[in-house]
Structures are given as C-alpha cells and as structure tokens.
C-alpha cells in the first residue's frame, strides 16, 4: 500500500510511541507510586495522618493536574532541554510526559490504596505491624488488582499524551499523524497511524486487565 520509506517510518514511529509511553509510565510510577502512598497514609483516615504533608501534596497534585498537557509540554521545554539536550524528539518528550503522568498516577494509586478494607488494616496493626509492613504487605498487596487497573488506565492515557506531543515535534505516531495528516493532507497515512494507536491501546488494555484478573484472589 505504501512505499518502503513510509512503511519504515510507520514502524519506527510505532516503536518511538511505545518507547515514550512505556519509559514515561515507568518514570511516572517511580514518582507517582510513592506520591500516592504518602497521600493515602497521610490522609486523615490513613495509617499515619498528617494534615500538613497531605495538604501540600494534594495542592501540588491538583496544580499540576490542572495544566493542560499541551501547555505543560511547551512550558517545561527549557527543563527538557537542560535534561535531554534538545526539546524535540521522543526522548525529550519523556520529560513532560513524566511530569504530567506522575501526579495523575499518584492520584490513582491513592484511590486504589484507599479501597483497602479498614478492618484488614486494623488486623495488621493489631498484630504489631509497623507502617512499612502495612504499606508493603497489606496496602500494596491487597490493592493489587485495583493498582493494575490503574496501570492500564495510566499507560493508555500516557499513550494519548505522547501522540499530542506530535504537534511540537515530539516524535512517534502522533508526530507522523500531524505532519502527514495536518500539514500535507495525506490523510491515508494519518488513518494508518490512528489504526496503529487503537491497536496499541487495545493490546495494552487487554494485557492489563488479564493480569489484574489473574491476580484477583477474591473471586473464583
């Protein structure tokens, strides 16, 4: 259907998209998981209530979450350049993607951990478990299906964001779609990128849901 250059470009674009999405998700969780844990335990119903820490983090998360991704992308360009050395291309896009993803992931982790039954936490406390043991063995262990559903949602969202970065030369499938579909009116190439994106989301969603079901011990 397309010549080899275009096919290669689409294949490279797919890899670039996956690269940006997965690396940003990973970094997003490196920041977002501890953030979510701290939010969940310092909340007034948590195991280590601390109004000051909770309010500060809560504010920061809300602030970051209220900046639209496209604007954040442009806003953090100097930072991106300082870290990566350039402000375009897929590696550079990982910086704003991580910044946008971390607070979002933090919120999802927080809400997953808050779903853990309070009685089970009390049971752990009553056997003398300390904060760290409760976080590690009870909160994360018992919330794992919900956390995995969260991962699936996060990865899907980050994939969508990565495509948005195409507007400013972010690399990947979004970049291709913008360049060919918007600037050159070669809509067939744009449609192919859309199809690839849809397939990617479906696959990631499928894997996530399968894992979360497999790890759920509450149902047969």
């Amino acid at each position, binding site marked *: 259907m397309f010549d080899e250059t275009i096919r290669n470009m689409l294949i490279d674009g797919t890899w670039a998209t996956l690269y940006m999405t997965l690396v940003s998700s990973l970094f997003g969780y490196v920041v977002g998981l501890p953030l979510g844990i701290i939010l969940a335990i310092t909340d007034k119903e948590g195991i280590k209530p601390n109004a000051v820490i909770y309010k500060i983090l809560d504010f920061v998360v809300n602030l970051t979450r209220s900046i639209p991704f496209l604007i954040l992308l442009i806003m953090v360009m100097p930072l991106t350049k300082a870290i990566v050395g350039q402000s375009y291309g897929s590696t550079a896009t990982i910086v704003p993607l991580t910044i946008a993803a971390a607070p979002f992931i933090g919120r999802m982790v927080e809400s997953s951990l808050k779903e853990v*039954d309070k*009685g*089970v936490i*009390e*049971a*752990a*406390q*009553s*056997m*003398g*478990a*300390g904060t760290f*043991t409760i976080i590690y*063995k*009870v909160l994360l*262990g*018992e919330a*794992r299906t919900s956390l995995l559903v969260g991962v699936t949602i996060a990865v899907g969202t980050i994939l969508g964001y990565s495509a948005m970065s195409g507007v400013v030369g972010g690399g990947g499938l979004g970049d291709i779609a913008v360049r060919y579909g918007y600037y050159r009116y070669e809509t067939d190439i744009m449609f192919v990128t859309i199809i690839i994106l849809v397939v990617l989301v479906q696959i990631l969603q499928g894997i996530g849901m399968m894992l979360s079901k497999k*790890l*759920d*011990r*509450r*149902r*047969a």
Partner: protein
Amino acid sequence: MEDSIDEVNHMAEQSILLEAKNIVKDYGQGRVLDDVSLQIHKGEVIVLIGPSGCGKSTFLRCMNGLEQIQSGQIVLDGEVITEGKTDWPSVRQKIGMVFQNYELFPHKTVLDNVILGPVKVQGRDKKEVTKEAEKLLERVGLLEKKDAFPRQLSGGQKQRVAIVRALILKPEILLFDEVTAALDPEMVREVLDVILELAAEGYTMLIVTHEMQFAKAVADKIVFIDGGKIVESDTPEKFFTQPKTDRARRFLNTFIYEKETGGEKL
C-alpha cells in the same frame, strides 16, 4: 461468702497482666467510656457484656490502641503504656485480637495469613513458623485448608483461622471482639469451642460477646457495661442468678422468652 473472699484474695496475689485505669473515651460530642477501670490477672478470662453501643467493643479497642483514649491509663505488665509516645507495634504483639468480621487478608492464602505476623513483624524464621502454623491449623481442624483463600472458607472456618493468626504471635492476652456475631448459628459452636479450649489451657482473655451461655461457661468474671460505665462485675454464677443491679436484671431478662399470657409481665 467466705469462699468468694478467698477467691478475691487469690486473684489479687496473682500478677495483674493488663489494667485499665479510669479510661475516658469521647466520640465527638458523646462520651463512650466514662471512667472505666478494670484489672485482668494472668490466666483470667473476663467476659464483657452489655447492650449494643454500651462501649464494650470500644473498651476492647482502646486496650490495643485501635482507639485513642482521652484520659486514663493502660498498664501492661506493670508498665504504663499510655504515657508519652506509645510504641504500639511492640505493645500489640503482646495483645492479640480477633475481630467480628475475621479481617483475613483476602489476597493471601490461609497459611500466608497466619505466618505474616511472625515472619514480617517478629522477623522469625519462615520454615519454623510454617511448621508451627500447620500445627495450630491442625488443632482447629483446618490443616487441609492451608492453601485455600479466605473466600473459599465458611465464616466459622475464617474465624478459626483468625484465632490461629492471633495465637501464633504468642500474645500474653487475647482480645475477642464479638467473634461470633457475624456467624450463622450452626457455626458459632465451632468457634466458641476453640475459645473454651484456650481458656482451659490458661490463656488470659478479654471477651466481648452476646452469647450468654458461652459467657457463663468460659468466664471467671463477668463485667456488665452500660452507658459507658461498668455497672456490675461478678462471678458468672452470681451474675446470672442474682444480679445486684436493676439494670443488669433488666438486661438479662431480655434473653428470657415467655409466652404472652396477657397477665403481668416480668
């Protein structure tokens, strides 16, 4: 009469394991526990009874710090644990607790539920703990369920696992918070039998229950609580046959059913 004085003296000689001194607990505006004091001696089984919402479960939860008290003292092994910053995790290893709704970890097998405390909290050897857990599970007749998940067990089985989970930490005292209240009637027995056995073995226990026959059988002392206060405490023989207070008499009467005759009620 002389008998009971002897008994009281005998109890005083034995060491006090856990003592609550003038406990006050407020929930928002309301006072749930109002100056409650209680001594639990080593090897003693005390059963707390009283109407719903009287504060007996709250009292139990105050003893291991699941609820904060507003004033008063808790003394464990002669040490005041409520002064300054309490190291609850180490205190709680000495005070085992079993809950009304079992509170087993749903994502962990029966065995993993039982060994979590000794392995992760007490840092004991996993192999050794596993052996001990299997022995205890066998004792309550659940060894073949060790790899099952909580959802695959009946309520009575879950509660027996929860008891084993508390026992394996070798606590000095066990707290039972209405452990049969969520069970089907025919499963109550299997759980209470385990507790009766533990009593016979000399475990120190503080039990909250609505099962009066069980209370009568297991208790060394009955403590009747109403409105956040201890109204009466006595041996089960005395309490159930000749309650001293009118309030206790009325409470006990609610467990007696008689055919309506149209005549004067009790």
